[in-house]
């Protein structure tokens, strides 16, 4: 009987495709949130697979904090154009015009206004009733208990005490008007699974993931890359060229690089298996306080 057995990646792929199709079948107006990161790239490919040979019946939405790495934005626009995606880019216009940014307002305010609020604004503006996210349960402790279909109330809030039971592969997709569901099709994937899948499927990813000489400033032990002129001059002046890569991507002032020589996926995986620091530590925003991710999630962050 062994011929009828799937590898773990094929099994995870089949599960994700099932989840994505279920959302398309059950919801009127779903959207796939696209962060341009590696997890998003995998999720987007899974959506393409789910509806092949047809087109994906929902748009991509990127919440642009206006502080993303330039290479990310470039990659995003190229990918959407080349693959025929309907891409929505949403940002918090009033806050952007008021000049909100991490250097002037600090990471907490910036994240809240340019990411969390912008996301909620975007979801409300287009009246999406389901939003796909590329979060994985193994990323962080509070995600380990997240449902695949995660219910949000009218205010987009997540109540950890009031989560629907989720059994087998039967997902409860019923919501009242104004309520919504966040859906995580790659919940059960690990970081290694994601890299392995990118390798096998030859999925294009932002070059920032690969090691290269980049101008970096050491801020409290985090290597911050100088990506544009908005970095305060006294900070940017301390920049040095370093061989670095990024394990996660976000706003450039809030995303630390790691020193690395890994310029291929194989080398990245090799590095990952020998380095014992989990990926989220390179995200500055997590350092606030214990349980901070859970707090952000309650407020509507992904």
């Amino acid at each position, binding site marked *: 009987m*062994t011929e*009828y057995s*799937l*590898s*773990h*990646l*094929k*099994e995870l*792929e*089949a599960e994700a*495709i*099932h989840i994505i*199709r*279920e959302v*398309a*079948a059950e919801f009127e107006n779903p959207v796939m949130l696209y962060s341009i990161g590696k997890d998003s790239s995998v999720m987007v490919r899974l959506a*393409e*697979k*789910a*509806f*092949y*040979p*047809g*087109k994906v019946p929902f748009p991509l939405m990127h919440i642009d904090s206006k502080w993303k790495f330039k290479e990310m934005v470039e990659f995003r626009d190229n990918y959407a154009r080349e693959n025929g995606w309907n891409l929505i880019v949403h940002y918090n216009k009033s806050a952007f015009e008021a000049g909100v940014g991490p250097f002037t307002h600090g990471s907490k305010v910036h994240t809240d206004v340019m990411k969390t609020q912008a996301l909620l604004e975007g979801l409300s503006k287009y009246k999406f009733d389901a939003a796909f996210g590329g979060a994985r*349960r*193994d990323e962080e*402790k*509070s*995600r*380990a*208990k997240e449902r695949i279909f995660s219910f949000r109330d009218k205010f987009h809030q997540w109540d*950890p*005490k009031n*989560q*629907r*039971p*989720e*059994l*087998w*592969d*039967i997902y*409860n997709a*019923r919501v*009242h008007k104004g309520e919504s569901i966040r859906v995580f099709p790659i*919940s*059960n994937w*690990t970081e*290694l699974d994601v890299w392995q899948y990118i*390798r096998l499927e030859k999925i294009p990813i932002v070059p920032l993931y690969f090691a290269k000489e980049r101008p970096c400033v050491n801020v409290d032990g985090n290597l911050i890359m100088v990506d544009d002129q908005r970095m305060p001059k006294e900070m940017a002046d301390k920049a040095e060229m370093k061989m670095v890569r990024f394990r996660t991507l976000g706003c450039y002032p809030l995303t630390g690089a790691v020193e690395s020589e890994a310029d291929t996926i*194989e*080398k990245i*995986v*090799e590095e990952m*298996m*020998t380095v*014992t*620091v*989990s990926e989220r530590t390179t995200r500055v925003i997590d350092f606030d306080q214990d*349980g901070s991710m*859970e707090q952000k999630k309650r407020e509507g962050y992904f």
Partner: protein
Amino acid sequence: MTTPTIDINSYLNQDEKKDLLRLLTAGSVDDGKSTLIGRLLFDSKKIYEDQLSALTRDSKRVGHAGEEIDYALLLDGLKAEREQGITIDVAYRYFSTNKRKFIIADTPGHEQYTRNMVTGASTANLAIVLIDATKGVITQTRRHTFLVSLLGIRHVVLAVNKMDLVNYDQKVFDEICAEYKAFITQLDVPDVNFIPLSALKGENVVEPTTLMPWYHGKSMLEFLESVHISSDRNFDDMRFPVQYVLRPDLDFRGFSARVASGIIRKGEEIMVLPSRKTSRIKEIITYDGNLDEAFPPQSVTITLEDEIDISRGDMIVYPDNLPRIERHFEAMLVWMDEKPMDPSAQFFIKHANNTTRVRIDKIQYKTDVNSLQKSSVDHFELNEIGRVVLTTNKAIFFDPYKKNRSTGSFILIDPMTNNTVAVGMIIDKLNAEDLPSRIVDENTLEANKLRIHKGESLISEAQLQKRYNQKGTTLWITGLHGSGKNELAFTLEKELFEHGATVVLLDGSSIRSGLSNELDFSPADRAEHLRRVAHISKLLNDQGIITICSFISPDEKIRNQVIQIIGEDRFKLIHMDADLEFCKKNKPELYEKFEQGLIENLPGADLQYTTPENPTLVLKPENRAQNTRIIMEYLADSKIFPIL
């Protein structure tokens, strides 16, 4: 940084081929469950350095393990749970070895978290049931094993933990295994294994034991790496429950789904349910190229040779192997909601990509998760489990859960709150026509209203009262079995008759021997029985006739249902207030049969009798000489009989 000794490409090529094992851990923190999981993750290098340092920080603040690292903290995610020191939800953990990838569903062990364990078990291939060697097989072990078998997990490993505390003694292990074997043979688990270990010391968890030379089996991890699971799926009965209809343009019509079971083959003749139209599989399409065959759990898209109208929720099968197609079926149900079940409510049932309305016809029994004893109930509370009969609005296509996890499982959704309130596993031991049907079917009632027009009698109520010199009234006598209800009823009937009243007596034995002869004494059937009695009494009262109804009618809910049917103004409740000891002495037969275990559902014994709140009259059996007179006086005073 260490230099890897293997070539990364060959590692990745090997990793790519690994399969996936989903496992459930059942046990409590006290049994060392978190320590065991922590060790499996730790020793497979999954616990990253920074998570570990955060852990050392946390343990000092709220830890329960003294100076040592508290693995439970590593696993408990949410803040509130951390404060209470128990894992509340299902947490999923991931680790891999050179041979396999693993997903652990980690669920709390206490009875109040039965629903969480059921959730974790629903996707698991294997369950580790944890036992504390110093305690042996306890109630919790039996509960966990029952749930594991209920959810159809085929492989169980009994992990006898804390062997270090019993000096790694073989005798202790053997005794526990023997006791567990005796228990689990009652349940349906095909593969049962036993492993002695010490999670705290890491003994026999990853590396084979050195301290238990008498044990020749595998260590826990070796076992998990090697247990054969690929033949657990159903490859025999092809079921393709259409999930999504793919219509990118007018020329292409594809039907997408996960193969639920069986092998779907290109070129084979298929049948579509419910239309029963047939065609052949033209193509099996995936993004990575077309396939000749697909098997569970693959997600594929198929096209057919002929144009057939197919929508989501339809099922594609082979014509010579059909699932059951029914509206009426039985299932084991687990109540998952804080709010208790309202058995008269309607729900949505989601089953095999199909959503329709469903109602609960009957609760056959509730199973006590600790003792496995069955009992009658009229509803389920949170975490309660039992066998029920259901009716859906349209037929569903299913197989019994034991044979097919995908087409035998469903969830119930409350249409008001949209919560998932229950989950079920279908049983097909009885034919649909042999199952009891619903007591009150709201749909039928509504539909019937459209057709039934009440006839107008040409005789007025005043004319009836004048003729009979009485008001049509129900004298309903309630009380325990043996309280003297029937004796009173018969004396009263005679007394009324002799004074010229027109009276009919209804009692349990006369109705149950005919009109209600298919009903038993469970709360649901009792309610149906009394509903029938109430309607007879109402018809007779409408004709101006006095009725005497002598029924135990043990609770307010049942009595209120009766009052609603008959009408409050002409319903008079007489309570025969006898204590249980009196009743047992007066009419001992049934109580003795109950003691011998021959009958159940006896009010006053295993079923509660609730004293009525507002009876019209309360009588004592000791005063039997006066009781009839009291009633006759009441009837005269209130001008029920005689009017003049």
